[in-house]
Each structure stands twice: as C-alpha cells, then as structure tokens.
C-alpha cells in the first residue's frame, strides 16, 4: 500500500530562517553553530541568528519533518564538546527545491522588469 507523500508546496513560502537553515544543510549535516556561521557567511552578515531563533526554528522543522537529528559528536575544529548534528530529510529537500524554484522565478521576473538594483548581492544575481 503506497502512502501519499506530503506536498512540499504546502510549506512554502518559507520564513527566511527556515529557508536559510535548509540551504545550510543542503550540502551535509551540521551542528547549530555551524548552521549559523554558514548563514551569516552566505548572507554577508545580513542574517544572524541567536540560539533562541535557531533552535526554535529547528524544533519546528523537526516537527514538520524537514530535518532530522543525526548522531551527537564533537566538532574537533572547535572543541571536544559533544554537539547535536542535523541533516536534511527527504521531505525537507523537496521543500527546499520548491522554495528555491519560487525564489528563482521571482528573481527572473525582477530581472525582466529591471527591478534589480546596484547592490553587491543583486549584481551577483544579475550575472
């Protein structure tokens, strides 16, 4: 008996926090601080998350089945403290793809209407 898979479009549009967390996990599992650092780096400091925002979002994403916890282990680059790692679930990957397509469509429309301004990020998007 096949079970119907949930429709990823019911989750979108995603909040910026959720989108960036999913994006950060797209290339492999990470712990909370590493997720935050990747988001900060990818957005050039425009998006920073405190522990409350990050773990509140992680809690809701775990409940929605977008991500899952993987094994706790230390990050030897930081210290020997055991950290909780998270990875993208299959459903989370489909939701991320759906959201990325939606945003890409929005960027195409903005480009068509010459709505992209002269900032660094928008110049990168335009190329």
């Amino acid at each position, binding site marked *: 008996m096949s079970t119907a898979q949930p429709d990823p479009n019911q989750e979108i549009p995603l909040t910026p926090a959720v989108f960036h967390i999913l994006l950060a996990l797209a290339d492999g599992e990470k*712990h*909370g*601080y590493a997720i*935050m650092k990747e988001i900060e780096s990818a957005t050039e400091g425009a998006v*920073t*998350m*405190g*522990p*409350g*925002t*990050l*773990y*509140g979002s*992680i*809690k809701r994403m775990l409940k929605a089945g977008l991500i899952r916890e993987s094994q706790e282990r230390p990050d030897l680059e*930081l210290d020997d*403290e055991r*950290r*909780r790692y998270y990875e993208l679930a299959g459903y989370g990957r489909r939701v991320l793809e759906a959201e990325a397509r939606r945003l890409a469509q929005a960027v195409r429309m903005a480009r068509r209407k010459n709505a992209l301004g002269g900032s660094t990020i928008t110049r990168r998007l335009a190329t």
Partner: protein
Amino acid sequence: MSISERIYRLLLRLYPRQHRRHYGEPMITHFRDQLREAHRDGTLLTLWLRTLIDVATTAPREHVESARMRNVYPWPEVLLAILPGVLPLLLPPQADRIERLVLLGLAATYLVVLGVYRKRNRPTAWVLPVLGLAGTYAVLWGFFLLLGEWRWFGENLPYPLIYLLPAAVVVLTKLIHHGNRPALVLFGTLLLTSPGLLLWQGAGSRAAYTAALEAPALILLAAALGLPFAGRYGLLGALFVAGSAQWAIEFTIDPSLQIRFGTWPHLLSLLNTVTTLVIIPLLALRAQSGRGRTLAILLPLATCLLFLVVLPPLVYTASPYTAGHVDIAAVLEEAVRNTIYAAQILAGMAFVLSLYSRSRQGNVAVTSQLGHQP
C-alpha cells in the same frame, strides 16, 4: 564558567521547561561559541544586545506554542471566553437595571441557542461564560415569572434561596452518588457557614438572608451549571462559568457593586471583578501545571483576604464620614461578617477545584467519576 554564560543560563529560564530540557544545552553551547568569537573580535556588547533581543522575541513565542501543545485553548479563544463576563462592566452605570438585564438576557439567550445548535461540534470556549450567565438568568427569570414577580428584590423572598435549593440538590446528588468525600466536606463547610452568618446578621431581616446565602448560592449555582462543561473542559470550564456567572449577576443585581468611578471602594470591586473574570481564568489555563494550580488557588485567597477582610475596616476608619467617630464594635462586626463571607468564597472555590481538578496521572478529569465523558 564565565559571568556571561551564567547570565545566559539565567535568561534561559524564561523559556518553557520542556523547551529548556530539550534545547537548553545546545543553546548554551551555541552561546558559548558566540561568546568565544565575540571575545576574539571585541564585539561582546553587540553579542549581548542581539542575545537580549533574541530571548525577548523567542521566549514568549515558545510559551504560546507550549500552551497550544498542552491542549489548552488558543489565546484568541481565551480572550473571547472572558469577554462576555466583562460585558456587564461596559454598560453605563446610569442605565436602568431592567434595561441592562433585558439586553444581557437577549444576548445570552441568543448565544445559548447558538451553543445548543453547535452541540455536536465542540463549542468554542467563549460560549462557556455566556452559557453560565444565561443559565443563571433562566433559573431566576423562571422562578420570578412563576411567582408573577418582576422585581429582583422580592420584599419577602430571599432570592438566593431560589437558586440555592435546586443547585444544591443537583450537586449533592452527584456527590453522594459518586462518593467524592473531599468535595462533600467542602460542600458542608459552605452550607454550614451560612447559618452562622445568618445568626450574626440577625435572622429577622431579609438582608440577612440575602447576605448569608448569596455567596454559597452563587457558587453552587455556578458549580451546578459547570458540571456539563467540566467533563469536557475540566477546571477551565468550571472557573469560566463560576467567575462570569457570579460576577455578572453581582453587577447587574446588587446596586452596591455597580460601577461608580470616583468612589474608590467601587473601583476595588471593579478590580476584584477583573481578577475573578480575567486573571483567574487565564491562570486556569496553566492548571495542568502545579504552578498554575497553585496560582489559581492562591489568587482568589489573596483577593478574598484583601477585599473582604483587610480593606473594609481600613476604608471604614479612613472614611471622612467616620473619622474621629470610629465605632470599634461596628468595625469588628464587619470584619467578622466579611471573614465568614471570605471563607464561603474560598470554600466554594476549593469545592469547585476538588470537583474539577484533573488527576495527576493522565490528565483524566475527575469529573469522569461524575458520569461525564472527558
């Protein structure tokens, strides 16, 4: 452990316990990592500013989500639930009493009909106090219509008896049938204090009957009306019904409790009403936690002690009409009377709590013993 980390651990206590249990350590680890980076970059102040904003914005949200997950009502429904009980306060104090009663009665009747037709679906919480109020009015109107009497203060009739007797019969039957001993003891306490008050007042006057029977009558009526709801809503339903029904009646029937701004004893009555109608139901939302139950019990206790026992003698002695002519005997008499009144209210609240408190094991309402499905 650094001072910053100690402070952050204290701030974490603003989050719900469940959330702290699950995510407390990762959040502390995360903060420690941020702290290490901030010390390196010299941005400690910026980190603390962001952290305080982070806690201030996320802790309340986690509490709301935690409350939703614990099967309590969402906050919009809660606010709607207490609004009908507050409605009598919005009526102009100069309005004729019959006018007010008719308006309230019409609104309540309409909502009762709505509530009945929604019986198949779980009624929303906002229906509860209105149903309690409407039921109370229905009992009163029924008896007064039967007697051909439109005046609320029948000259020779102590009106609390009218609803005390049927309410007492309903509740007593349930208690004896199901052997709820603690509730029986409290029920007895409630009733036995009434003759004491009656004797103190002097059994000859109608006012004595009214004063003696008012509190237990209202509480028992509210408890009886709350029984159908307690099976579904437990303590929350009982408190909503009790608070709204009692104080709505008080404000529409008892002229001494009508709002007259500028007279501060009546402002105190207003405060007491807001406490009963608003704050206690809100605390009852957390009745599933030990802290919530404790607060839901302590607050009426404090309110009763303050408004009925402590303040009246102070008001009396501070009044310009009695300054310099303090009658100690009168002050003591009022204090004793109000203490008995306070004991009745407290016994009533404890009675309601003992009827409708959820058991510790699985949040199964004790009212399942009363034959209602939880």
